């Protein structure tokens, strides 16, 4: 039987190469798309697989239920939460990871790195794989650091560095640390960054003012439970714990109604955001659809060409083959075709991965030693799906009645049912293609809309220098730097702020209450606060709606007034979103009104337009701006420098800013980038996913076209005699061409009617995640249909015209 299957398979290639190539090409393309998107899906859903404890570890999460604040669980915790948990629940097992920006010194070079301050049992808790060193003692002493093999190679050129030293400047000052262990590099799909670990000591935590400040988020806390029920049971007790511990910190509200603590399974942390999860799921679905389209091709071509094998089936049956034997034969041939398509698809994936990684901002790869079982599993899925699709053609072929087939001069083709099934499948294929085109246009439209949207400030010609908040930088160095920057030709304005576009390292929110009306019951709205230095709005290009901006000329504008009393009123500027959140009738009405902001009296002296600093998917927060004329003396991790310039390209400006920095603060590395480059972190994922979707859609369209071409070629050859007859009866070539081409364009038009509402629903759902979605007009639907129609016309037009141009005599001899 196997030999018979292989012979039939091989002969189909050698004797009808075009048919076989179309069949295999469509299947391979579908398999390649499915494989690539499966790889992506696996990458995205298998974060933290490196730790054998993955199933037992949970990240501490928190969700706030405050007006004006996004109500979603985020991973993170107050620094002292674990200590408070252990006080109430002594059996709790947990560790903390507190990231710190530090400077590593090697000779004269200074490099910015991230150091994690962690609890001593961190390595053992996660079972971090070590190349050298002892996990139990490596973090026992605050004078030791554990570094990754990547960092070891970066600074020492080897991973054999246990016992050597590293000079590091961090918040506590500059010190030399002994390297006690070297950890293996973690895979790319890990949220944990374990390049440099050092012991988190009580001395260090004691210096942190907000360590036990409920509502703050400083670090990550991880818990370990042997069984999920244990995590759920403790989580059920957390509302009472919050009420006990928070007490009256939030005023009269019931604490657990405002703040809830969660245990997020470690495997769910990466895709905790439902929008991200949906994006990954969508790409997974695109992969499945591409495979389905390819299998539809297979069914279509197999059933259409079944007639060509009808006589063979009849002969085999006459010679004693039972229906079961024939089904096995045809399913066997399908299995061999699918196996070959899988191999070709795998090769296509290998060749295309660099391109796909570049287009999608990914780092996917296949390592057959490690991924062998996965590849075999995907092959099993593809084979099972393929065999399922092959069942109908196999049963259809095996059901031919030999006496009828041998008596007939025409080959059967599955009858009216078969023809309708094929047309229905072509409609399904093109519905998917049209929907993909429409969605692709919708995605591109939204991306363009986001890029062109008014952010409330000018994004170009703006450079952000984060080095001014670097560890060890003194106020004098900051002032000297700003003076030097002002002297750079082309610089228009220099300012400092605690926040900058796409910089969320400092994010502070507090409640605000209007003092011009009676207190309302329930929770007060929360405003996002920014501390700003002189020329902040001028440097950004922000727009004043009403009132005035803050400056040094108005004494009441300074937020750090040493003579301030509880009754001192500080002038602030608010944003348009704050006007709405605080229920002022208009920006004008808000002017000169008093508010209580986090226990401090403030007066609104100006209202500015909203400025979008963060993700396009988030609402622009309601802002309150506090002014300080002396930003150099702010807390060390606040002041980020913003430079407005013109007449100089970004690279030249960077060079000048870096040169000035080296002179002002030579022992701290320069860190900075343009606002556009910084903001790209929010837009790149959208672009990347859109690119991946477009690649998937293009593959789907290609598969659909291959199927349509195969079917059109087959049907055109079957209708050759009819073409001859029509021409004998006086039909012209264009009339016959229109007839043949029209036959294949009709399913595309029906497909549009199915695809449009589906695409509209999917697009509206996708756009709902954006704060400022682009409008959905009829244009993209018509354009999507036109694109599918053009692709279909290009596919079958040539075939139809060639058939119509055949001489009637030749056409009539064809059967």
């Amino acid at each position, binding site marked *: 039987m196997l030999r018979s299957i292989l012979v039939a398979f091989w*002969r189909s290639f050698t*004797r009808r190469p075009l048919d076989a190539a179309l069949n295999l090409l469509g299947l391979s393309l579908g398999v390649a798309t499915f494989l690539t998107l499966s790889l992506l899906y696996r990458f995205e859903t298998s974060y933290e697989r490196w730790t054998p404890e993955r199933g037992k570890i949970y990240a501490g999460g928190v969700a706030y239920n405050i007006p004006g604040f996004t109500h979603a669980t985020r991973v993170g915790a107050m620094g002292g939460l674990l200590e408070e948990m252990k006080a109430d629940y002594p059996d709790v097992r947990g560790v903390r990871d507190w990231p710190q920006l530090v400077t590593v010194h090697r000779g004269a070079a200074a490099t910015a790195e991230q150091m994690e301050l962690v609890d001593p049992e961190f390595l053992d808790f996660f079972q971090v794989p070590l190349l050298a060193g002892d996990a139990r003692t490596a973090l026992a002493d605050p004078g030791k650091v554990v570094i990754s093999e990547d960092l070891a190679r970066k600074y020492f050129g080897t991973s054999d560095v246990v016992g050597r030293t590293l000079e590091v400047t961090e918040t506590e000052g500059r010190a030399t640390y002994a390297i006690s262990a070297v950890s293996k590099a973690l895979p790319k799909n890990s949220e944990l960054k374990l390049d440099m670990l050092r012991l988190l000591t009580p001395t260090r935590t004691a210096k942190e003012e907000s360590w036990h400040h409920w509502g703050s988020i400083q670090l990550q806390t991880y818990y370990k439970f042997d069984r999920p029920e244990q995590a759920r049971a403790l989580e059920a007790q957390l509302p009472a714990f919050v009420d006990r511990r928070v007490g009256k910190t939030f005023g009269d509200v019931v604490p657990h109604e405002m703040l809830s603590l969660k245990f997020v399974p470690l495997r769910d942390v990466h895709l905790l955001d439902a929008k991200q999860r949906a994006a990954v799921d969508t790409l997974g679905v695109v992969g499945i659809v591409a495979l389905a389209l390819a299998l539809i091709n297979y069914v279509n071509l197999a059933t259409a060409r079944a007639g060509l094998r009808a006589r063979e089936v009849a*002969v085999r049956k*006459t*010679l*004693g*083959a039972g229906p079961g034997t024939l089904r096995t034969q045809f399913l066997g041939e399908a299995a061999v075709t699918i196996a070959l398509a899988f191999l070709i698809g795998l090769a296509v994936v290998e060749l295309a991965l660099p391109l796909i990684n570049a287009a999608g901002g990914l780092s996917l790869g296949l390592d057959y030693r490690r991924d062998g079982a996965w590849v075999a599993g995907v092959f099993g899925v593809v084979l099972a799906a393929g065999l399922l699709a092959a069942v109908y053609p196999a049963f259809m072929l095996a059901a031919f009645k030999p006496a009828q087939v*041998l008596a007939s001069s025409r080959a059967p083709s599955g009858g009216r049912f078969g023809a309708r099934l094929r047309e229905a499948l072509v409609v399904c294929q093109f519905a998917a293609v049209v929907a993909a085109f429409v969605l692709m246009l919708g995605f591109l439209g939204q991306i363009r809309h986001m890029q062109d949207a008014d952010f409330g400030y000018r994004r170009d010609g703006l450079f952000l220098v984060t080095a001014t908040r670097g560890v060890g930088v003194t106020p004098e160095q900051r002032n000297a730097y700003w003076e030097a920057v002002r002297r750079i030709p082309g610089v228009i304005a220099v300012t400092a702020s605690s926040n900058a576009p796409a910089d969320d390292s400092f994010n502070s929110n507090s409640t605000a209450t209007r003092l011009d009306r009676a207190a309302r019951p329930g929770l007060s709205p929360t405003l996002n606060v920014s501390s700003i230095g002189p020329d902040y709005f001028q440097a950004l290009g922000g727009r004043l709606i009403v009132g005035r901006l803050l400056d040094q000329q108005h004494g009441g504008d300074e937020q750090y007034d040493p003579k301030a009393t509880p009754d001192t009123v500080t002038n602030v500027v608010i944003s348009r979103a704050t006007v709405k959140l605080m229920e002022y009738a208009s920006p004008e009405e808000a002017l000169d009104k008093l508010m209580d902001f986090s226990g401090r009296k403030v007066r609104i002296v100006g209202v500015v337009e909203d400025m979008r600093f963060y993700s396009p998917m988030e609402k622009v927060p309601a802002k309150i701006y506090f002014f300080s004329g002396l930003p150099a003396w702010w807390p060390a991790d606040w002041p980020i420098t913003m430079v407005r310039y013109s007449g100089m390209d970004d690279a030249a400006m960077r060079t000048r800013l870096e040169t000035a920095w080296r002179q002002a603060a030579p022992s701290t590395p320069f860190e900075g980038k343009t606002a556009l480059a910084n903001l790209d972190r929010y837009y790149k994922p959208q672009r990347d996913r859109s690119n991946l979707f477009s690649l998937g859609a293009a593959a789907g369209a290609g598969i659909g076209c291959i199927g349509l071409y195969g079917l059109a070629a087959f049907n055109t050859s079957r209708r050759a005699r009819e073409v001859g007859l029509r021409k004998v009866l006086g039909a012209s070539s264009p009339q016959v061409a229109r007839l043949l081409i029209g036959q294949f364009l009709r399913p595309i038009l029906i497909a549009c009617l199915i695809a449009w509402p589906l695409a509209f629903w999917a697009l509206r759902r996708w756009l709902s995640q954006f704060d400022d979605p682009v409008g959905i007009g009829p244009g993209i639907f018509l354009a999507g249909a036109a694109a599918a129609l053009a692709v279909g016309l290009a596919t079958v037009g040539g075939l139809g015209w060639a058939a119509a141009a055949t001489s009637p005599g030749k056409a009539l001899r064809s059967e």
Partner: protein
Amino acid sequence: MIELKSLSRRYRSDEIETTALHDVSLTIRQGEFVAIMGPSGCGKSTLLNILGTIDRPTEGRYLFDGEDLTASSEAALAQHRAQRLGFIFQSFNLVDDLTIAENIELGLLYRKGRQGSRRALVEAAMDRVGVGHRARHFPHQLSGGQQQRAAIARAIVGEPSLILADEPTGNLDTENGAQVMEILKGLNAAGATIVMVTHSPSHADQAGRRIDILDGRLVASVAQAI
């Protein structure tokens, strides 16, 4: 060997019912060479299809070596064909994608049980009909006569007890037709039972018995001297 008792075959399509065979009773003995004659559409091929178990009677019984095949399952009939029958068609019905040797091997492929070396049997059958030198060719590379000889080789490779030939010379010229008839006569002389449908009176005259069919009824059965 074969006994047909009051056999009828009717076809129904939409509102029309056609009777292809009407109350046919017939006995064929082991080693006979029977020719079936009649005009087009008289039911010759239907009778041959029923004898070959690729069609079933609407009424009546079909006994083969005493075994009633009328109600046998599809699988049982398939094995019956594989073990005991050989078919020869007017249009040869060789599988285009298989070589001549592979086509002939099909006659053994679906038999259950050990069959020894299929290759040796195939080679012997090809030599017997004179197409051994065309073993690796495809059907379209052979002349009509060569294709029909290959089809005969496929029919006899399993040494069946009954060979059914449906107008085996209908698509051949006189010379090739005569060659095919010589082969069939040789096979019959060697002990094979043959039932042949033909339009050619001269070929029918070479059979041991001639049966005439008209409008689905058996009208004459005449023994002939060969």
